[in-house]
């Protein structure tokens, strides 16, 4: 009996810690909810589609930021897709094994560069470039705004999306590829006809995970988005994302309602990323069953 006791204690400890993790997540949700109570009570659901963010008259709506976040993230994803897929396909199918390993490692290292450094780089190298393009197109030459933020996001999520694509493609069983080659298919036909359809849901899940990253990305976007709290009317406009408005205003909000509205934006951001990530996990879970 004595010898079983410490085991029980150890089991209890592990269980407590695991419970703690669950409560941590619940606690985060609860804290965000209670922190945004003031704003929830005052504006209700209309907060989501209200388009005015006016700290003077204490009128707060999240639409400008939701639009900013969704537009920058989706555009970034669209830009990234062809490059990420190509890189993934190249590494998984074309590159010789000796080259693919180090290349993939290099890509993952680049994914580790802190986002504030991407922001620094974008501010001094990407902004003049975008400004030049805007002059050519006759758009207001801000250099900052939605296009710059989308571009830097695209660059940031690319290594991540590429390495997931590679992992997924590598999971395609060699037998079915061999079978296709045996029928006389060219390499591209095998990739298009066998590999991509086989791993399509995995690739989609990987892209969703990348989207989840882009949605919550803060620093690099804050530095180049232009911080304008209005619903953007064109793609060249300045904007604000949910994350960037929090970074800009959180320590500075002097009124309780303002702070509460910012916490509610945090809550919405939490829910949106949760939704996207959950979708990706469901797809992956189905994949593993198959």
């Amino acid at each position, binding site marked *: 009996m004595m010898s079983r006791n410490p085991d029980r204690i150890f089991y209890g400890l592990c269980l407590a810690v695991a419970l703690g993790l669950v409560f941590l997540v619940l606690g985060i949700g609860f804290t965000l909810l209670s922190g945004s109570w003031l704003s929830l009570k005052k504006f209700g659901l209309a907060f989501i589609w209200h388009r*005015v*963010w*006016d*700290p*003077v*008259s204490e009128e707060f709506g999240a639409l400008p930021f939701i639009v900013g976040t969704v537009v920058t993230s989706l555009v970034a994803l669209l830009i990234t897709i062809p490059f990420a897929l190509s890189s993934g396909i190249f590494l998984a199918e074309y590159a010789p094994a000796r080259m693919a390993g180090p290349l993939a490692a290099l890509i993952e290292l680049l994914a580790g560069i802190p986002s504030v450094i991407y922001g620094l780089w974008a501010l001094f190298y990407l*902004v003049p470039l975008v*400004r030049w393009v805007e002059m050519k197109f006759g758009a*207001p*030459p*801000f*250099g*900052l*705004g939605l296009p710059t933020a989308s571009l830097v996001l695209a660059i940031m999520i690319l290594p991540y999306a590429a390495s997931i694509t590679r992992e997924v493609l590598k999971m395609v069983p060699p037998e079915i590829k061999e079978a296709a080659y045996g029928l006389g298919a060219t390499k591209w036909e095998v990739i298009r006809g066998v590999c991509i359809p086989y791993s399509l849901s995995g690739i989609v899940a990987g892209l969703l995970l990348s989207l989840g990253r882009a949605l919550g990305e803060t620093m690099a976007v*804050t530095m180049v988005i*232009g*911080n*304008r*709290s*209005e619903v953007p009317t064109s793609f060249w406009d*300045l904007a*604000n994302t949910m994350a960037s408005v929090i970074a*800009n*205003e959180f*320590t*500075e*909000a*002097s009124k309780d309602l303002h*702070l509460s509205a910012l916490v509610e934006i945090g809550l919405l951001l939490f829910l949106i990323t949760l939704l996207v990530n959950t979708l990706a996990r469901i797809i992956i879970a189905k994949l593993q069953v198959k």
Partner: protein
Amino acid sequence: MKKWWLWLVLGWWAFSGGALAGKITLLGAGATFPYPLYSKWFHVYYQKTGIKVNYQSIGSGGGIRQILARTVDFGASDAPMTDEELAKAPAEILHLPMAIGAVVISYNLPGVPSGLKLTPQVLADIFLGKIRKWNDPRIAQLNPNLKLPKLPIVVVHRSDGSGTTFNFTYYLSLVSPEWKKRVGYGKAVRWPTGMGGKGNEGVTGYLKQLPGTIGYIELAYAHQNRLPVAALQNKAGNFVLPTLKSLSAAAKTHIPPDTRVLIVNTDAADGYPLSAMTWILVYKEQAYGGRSYERAKALADLLWWCVHEAQEYNEALFYARLPENVVAIVEKLIRSMTYKGKPLRP
């Protein structure tokens, strides 16, 4: 073998505890407007006394929020607290003026290295988004001898809660009825046009980097970065450049005992119309939240030093010294600071 990290932790605590007991670090946060000045002052003060002052320029709105939440020893703001904000405070808060600065209209215009003149109405219409090109006839009329390029005007404003914004928008509300109706004034407003930069630093950064921009910043930022500033027409009808002389001229006016007053749109004929005082905010009763007497005393001593010896550093950094009449009021206010009812500087 397992104990080594325990010793490490213990050593760390002992070390940091010792550091804590030895020297006090005062924590302040708020306005970015006086940041260059404060960082100079506190650097000198540290070398003189060994007392560290950690000042973070997070914006006046933040300074007020943090002092209300008692997360800092002092807040800093370029806008006096409103009655509503003061009502929320857990105890009486004192406004201590520290220096006089100017909000300047700075711009980045290829071909126009300096010399831009603006009237309050034109300024308001630029920030309302009604004047959109640099070669607009209304600007050209005021500046007949400048070669204005055909460039779109890009307005840069603050993205954070800021006393600089408060002074600027308060001024625009005084001079433009349309501004007052459409936008109003505050530490953060709903801007009709333009991009936001974080802090005076951020706005200045954009002004330096992007041609065609116009924005409002603190005078010191313009000087340190060699940015041109516009002459503004004051109430008396004169076009005045922000200089130390025109700033103090603007400040020679009646200051109430609680010092909560804005000095924009001055009557003085040679006064710059966008002059602004900047305040440090502290609690009158310093014994709260378990603060030690030493900490409270160190704060009072620091503030006393700031409005006396420190003032000699103002002019090199383009802030005007506090006029005699204001110093007298601040001395009285600092003397009224107490710890458990006893004055800290009798």
